[in-house]
């Protein structure tokens, strides 16, 4: 914790250099059949970014991801607060949520397809089911773990349920809840892309699945590269905020 300010930056640069080096070595070993070198991938990504079709797919994915994330956060917080504030519900539902968290949700995709049909709503649903449970679980545990003295203070001040959530429960639980949101973000993104791979005709996931079908290595590498960069950047920012929140508390 007492590490200098420069350390994280140095580590990030070392990591990126290491990953790029491994990638290049893997390319030398495997060859053009199944891989592209880092330079080729970036070049093709720039090429891809100049086509209007690519932006259409990207916009579609962002739209689906945004909707899925909004649903996952809203429902997750709602479930987490509702269960966390009630002892028996929290004790009974927590193990069930953990069990739901561990099931391979990918097996549910045919059911979602049948229920929502091929398209936007199916992939939003697929993204959302990946994100709701971690947000709910972290929120539930955060609310349940609040020090009793804070709650007693609220009761002494005769706060109603709404004021209690706004001025005591939420601020006290924020660091844990934020961790839940961070995990939820990653899982919703992967869920949305998986949903697109199996159940869509637009979006980056569809582009990826299509490229897998046609075995277009250029597109596979570029789309994967873009997804990883996007996830890494947002996750890095969220992780920094997360650490700051926990450090303060």
């Amino acid at each position, binding site marked *: 914790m007492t590490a200098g300010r420069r350390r994280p930056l140095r*580590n990030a640069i070392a990591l990126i250099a290491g990953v790029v080096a491994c990638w290049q070595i893997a390319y030398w070993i495997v060859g053009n059949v199944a891989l592209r070198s880092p330079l080729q991938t970036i070049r093709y990504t720039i090429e891809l970014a100049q086509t209007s079709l690519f932006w259409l797919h990207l916009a579609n994915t962002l739209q689906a991801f945004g909707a899925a994330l909004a649903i996952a956060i809203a429902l997750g917080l709602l479930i987490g607060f509702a269960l966390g504030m009630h002892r*028996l519900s929290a004790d009974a*539902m927590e193990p069930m949520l953990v069990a739901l968290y*561990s099931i*391979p949700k990918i097996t549910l995709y045919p*059911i979602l397809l049948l229920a929502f049909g091929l398209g936007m709503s199916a992939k939003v649903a697929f993204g959302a089911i990946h994100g709701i449970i971690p947000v709910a679980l972290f929120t539930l545990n955060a609310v349940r773990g609040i020090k009793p003295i804070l709650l007693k203070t609220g009761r002494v001040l005769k706060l109603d349920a709404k004021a209690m959530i706004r001025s005591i429960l939420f601020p006290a639980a924020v660091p844990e809840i934020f961790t839940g949101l961070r995990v939820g973000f990653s899982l919703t993104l*992967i869920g949305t892309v998986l949903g697109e791979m199996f159940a869509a005709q637009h979006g980056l996931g569809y582009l990826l699945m299509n490229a897998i079908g046609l075995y277009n290595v250029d597109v596979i590498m570029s789309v994967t590269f873009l997804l990883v960069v996007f996830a890494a950047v947002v996750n890095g920012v969220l*992780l920094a905020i997360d650490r700051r929140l926990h450090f303060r508390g």
Partner: protein
Amino acid sequence: MSRVTRYQAAVIGGFVLLLEALCVGGVIDKVTMPPPHRIAVDFVKLLTSKAMYPEIAKSMANVLLAFALAYIVGIATGTALHGYRTLRDTLDPLFATYYAIPVFAFYPLFIVMFGLGDGPQVLIGFLLGVVAVIVTTLNGLDRVPVVLRKTALIARLSPLHTALRVTLPFCAPYLLTAAKLALAYAFIGVIGSEFIMARAGMGYEIGFAYTNFDNATMYPLILLILLLSIAMNGALSHWEKVLLARRGQA
């Protein structure tokens, strides 16, 4: 305890009854989902007919293989990595973003490299699980009290023996958490790969049944996968609880 169990039974029972009512009432049509009692009948049929046994055995063997590989390699890597602070700090952001990588995108690459068989599927399950095991192992090792390490030093244990006799046994609850994660990811990796491209296995059969509107096969198979993963996860959770309770008393 029994109040909690009753609560859980009521939630599950209520959910099944609700589905049954929605299906019978026609809110959910038959093409989308057969009523739960119908799925239960089909489920029994599926298990007694034995036609699916080779598929089930194949998928489960791959799941267990991917799990075992991810678990052993993950614990070994985590233990080896624990001593190297700088390397760990450098790899930390990679571990944090790892689960945003769509590992399935590499599946075709693996098929080209290893052929359309069990190899690529096991590899996907392994890649999904291994990082979770490494991170959990590191977490557990961070909590080993200094006195235990000093004792190992005094007893002149080699690093390997220190890990096997002292630090890893201390981390047992963490290693069980790691096992649960590795198992969940092994299921996702193997079944997911079978959905995308395979010649056999439960995931392949579900995809096949889906394209043929064969709900009588699809729903029981999905139910079977869910039950298997919940049962295995539940067994590990129970073991974890027993272990924690014993340590609490000690």
